[in-house]
């Protein structure tokens, strides 16, 4: 406990600590529960992907949910057993809604996977971070932010202080206190991991001065480990255990809401997080249990080592809740919440369960109007103006609450604690914050919908245009063809006698001629097939001839001069076609004659008529 200059944060309150009840007994191991329900999403960031299916046998410590992305942390089976369900289960959440869980029925053997301790000092830091993520190490102070993602110093600012948070300022909670008293050596080893990753100039362990035993144990462990960490007693003042407040007290630095603490050369971890980091690397044990304070309206308040996933009601029963217990508070009385569903499982964020009773927490008298006394502003550790935020949150004027920096509020509850009008200020702020988030989500969705709608319209427009262009092209081609046909017809009309006469023999001719000579040398089947083919071709030729005859022609009512002109043009074309055709015929084998035969007919005719 070095003599160092401490700073002060603004505001703060001194509620009754109620910690003495639960520190008299050492940490005990909670018995194996009848069922464990492990929520997949237990940290800030991506929801882990389940790795097991119903019916799978799992071992204690086996990964059952794989981290999804960098800001995410794996989850593991807290004991050996059989997976009974992968699906929705009550969540440890104020909403009382369900969340994705892996429900395991323990087999009672509590059999571990093969645990591998690693010499993290021999590994590159990147790999150590990955290991921490895959071991499910997250901030156990309550924020459950994946720890590995906090072990990267800022590129531009050198790391100065590593702050280790053992303040534990919230009333009733003593799990960090007991952890430091009983397992200080391993906490120190865990701190060394974070120190090695971040390489700060100094390490400061902040402990509130109402925990002298813990501070002494830590100081001794630091000495025994030969480390140069400083154990610092900080004044007991709620919320000294808030990360920003502790950083302020120990370093004098103010971390603004929009900045990461590493941007200020400082980082903060909870003592329990350090402990689990060491268990993960030094013992190969992923985070499958944590210390939970059972206190409040119970016969024997005490700290237990509890498997993650243990149903809260089952756990609280160990401490012997008194008959008038009517609820469970998860967390402390300042920042915790009444658990709507008692069978909700203990999660990594569960540091304390308080048995609630009307005697212990008498219902507040009704809210009175704000008298603008300013007590809340004086108590606020973030120097906000709670009465202003309250005013606008109450009026649902959320834009204004943001102008008063509602997102800097850490929901510590100091303002509600001091308010003489008993206004539940924090609840208004939570309400306003979640409304603002919802609005932002809606706005984002609406913007996305608008963009996609506009894109679709644009695409439809483009497609329509392309189609129109294609149609226009096709129509143009059709028109050209028609014109050609019309011209041909006109030309033939110029010599109607010849057209009518040769058309018939030519149409049938090709059918007869090839079939005739072919029939002799070929087998009967082939002959039949050939005959059939010829018949079809003949029919097609006939149909074509018919069509040219019956189709209305735009050359029907032309003056003789015009007809002559059309005929001239057609004759020239026909000659060209004739030239092309003779070349084609020469190049092709004789049977091909059937193909050019029909079109050749009028050509021949017009040619001769020309001559």
């Amino acid at each position, binding site marked *: 406990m070095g003599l160092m200059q401490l700073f002060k944060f603004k505001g703060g309150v001194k509620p009754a600590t109620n910690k003495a009840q639960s520190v008299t007994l050492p940490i005990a191991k909670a018995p194996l529960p009848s069922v464990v329900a492990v929520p997949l999403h237990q940290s800030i960031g991506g929801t882990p992907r389940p790795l097991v299916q119903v019916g799978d046998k799992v071992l204690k410590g086996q990964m059952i949910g794989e981290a999804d992305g960098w800001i995410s942390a794996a989850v593991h089976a807290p004991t050996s057993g059989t997976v009974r369900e992968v699906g929705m289960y009550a969540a440890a959440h104020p909403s009382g809604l369900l969340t994705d869980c892996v429900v395991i029925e323990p087999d009672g053997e509590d059999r571990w996977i093969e645990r591998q301790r690693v010499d993290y000092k021999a590994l590159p830091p990147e790999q150590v971070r990955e290991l921490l993520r895959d071991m499910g190490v997250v901030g156990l102070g309550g924020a459950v932010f994946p720890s590995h993602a906090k072990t990267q110093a800022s590129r531009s600012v050198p790391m100065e202080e590593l702050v280790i948070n053992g303040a534990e300022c919230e009333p009733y909670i003593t799990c960090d206190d007991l952890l430091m008293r009983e397992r200080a050596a391993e906490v120190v080893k865990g701190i060394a991991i974070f120190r090695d990753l971040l390489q700060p100039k100094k390490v400061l362990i902040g402990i509130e001065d109402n925990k002298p035993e813990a501070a002494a144990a830590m100081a001794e462990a630091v000495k025994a480990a030969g480390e140069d960490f400083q154990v610092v007693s900080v004044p007991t003042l709620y919320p000294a255990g808030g990360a920003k407040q502790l950083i302020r007290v120990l370093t004098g630095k103010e971390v603004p809401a929009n900045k990461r603490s590493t941007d200020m050369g400082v980082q903060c971890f909870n003592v329990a997080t350090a402990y689990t980091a060491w268990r993960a690397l030094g013992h190969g044990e992923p985070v499958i249990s944590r210390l939970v304070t059972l206190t409040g309206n119970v016969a024997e308040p005490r700290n237990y080592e509890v498997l993650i996933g243990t149903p809260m009601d089952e756990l609280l029963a160990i401490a012997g809740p008194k008959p008038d217990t009517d609820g469970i508070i998860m967390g402390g009385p300042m920042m915790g919440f009444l658990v709507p569903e008692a069978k909700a499982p203990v999660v990594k964020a569960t540091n304390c369960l308080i048995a609630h009773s009307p005697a212990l927490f008498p219902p507040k008298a009704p809210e009175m109007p704000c008298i603008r006394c300013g007590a809340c502003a004086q108590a606020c550790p973030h120097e906000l103006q709670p009465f202003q935020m309250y005013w606008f949150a109450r009026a649902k004027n959320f834009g204004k609450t943001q102008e008063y920096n509602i997102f800097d509020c850490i929901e510590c509850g100091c303002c509600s604690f001091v308010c003489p009008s008993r206004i539940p200020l924090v609840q208004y702020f939570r*309400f306003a914050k979640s*409304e603002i988030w919802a609005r932002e989500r809606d706005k984002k969705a609406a913007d996305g919908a608008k963009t996609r709608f506009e894109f679709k319209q644009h695409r439809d427009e483009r497609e329509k245009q392309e189609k129109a262009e294609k149609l226009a092209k096709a129509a143009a081609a059709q028109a050209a063809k028609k014109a050609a046909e019309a011209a041909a017809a006109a030309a033939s009309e110029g010599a109607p006698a010849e057209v009518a006469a040769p058309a018939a023999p030519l149409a049938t001719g090709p059918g007869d001629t090839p079939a005739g000579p072919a029939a002799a040398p070929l087998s009967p089947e082939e002959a039949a097939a050939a005959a059939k083919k010829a018949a079809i071709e003949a029919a097609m030729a006939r149909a074509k001839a018919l069509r040219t005859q019956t189709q209305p022609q735009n050359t029907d009512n032309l003056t003789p001069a015009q007809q002559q002109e059309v005929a001239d043009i057609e004759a020239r074309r026909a000659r060209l076609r004739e030239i092309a055709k003779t070349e084609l015929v020469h190049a092709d084998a004789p049977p091909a004659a059937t193909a050019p035969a029909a079109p050749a007919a009028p050509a021949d005719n017009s040619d001769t008529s020309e001559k």
Partner: protein
Amino acid sequence: MLIAIAIMALGAVVLGAALGFASVKFKVEGDPLVDKIEAILPQTQCGQCGYPGCKPYAEAIAKGEADINLCPPGGAEGVGKLADLLGREAKPLDGVEKPPQVALIDENTCIGCTLCIQACPVDAIVGAAKQMHTIVESLCTGCELCLPPCPVECITMEPIQETVDTWKWKYPVVELKRVA
């Protein structure tokens, strides 16, 4: 007297020119009122307002052709915001407000006709001819436009369930008596 008139006239000319210049120089692209109205509309693009999308409705409101209470997805809150923006009287919604919903394709019944894809205004449906189709839930605005074209009626609307992530703290007043 004459000089005074001349000065005033000159002033008028100079200021007029300045104003004219400013109006050209600082011309606002698009119609800011339409954009503001459109920002309030929910972009569901359902056409329930009688216009082929939110933007046309916004334009109609801006022109004074349409009333402000025609958008059911926007709900009473939307009407209120429009009334605030336009300085008009808020009025009850002309239509029924529904809880937020998404469309769901029964994938066993879907015949892969692609008709719903063409109907969806926001490209929230994926699929190909004769292949099973599905709806990307996060993109679906719940406009119901895909329901009528489906020849096998395999699309249904499902209300969006609240999750732990989308859950909202309630307005405190009601809770007061229950909480510690």
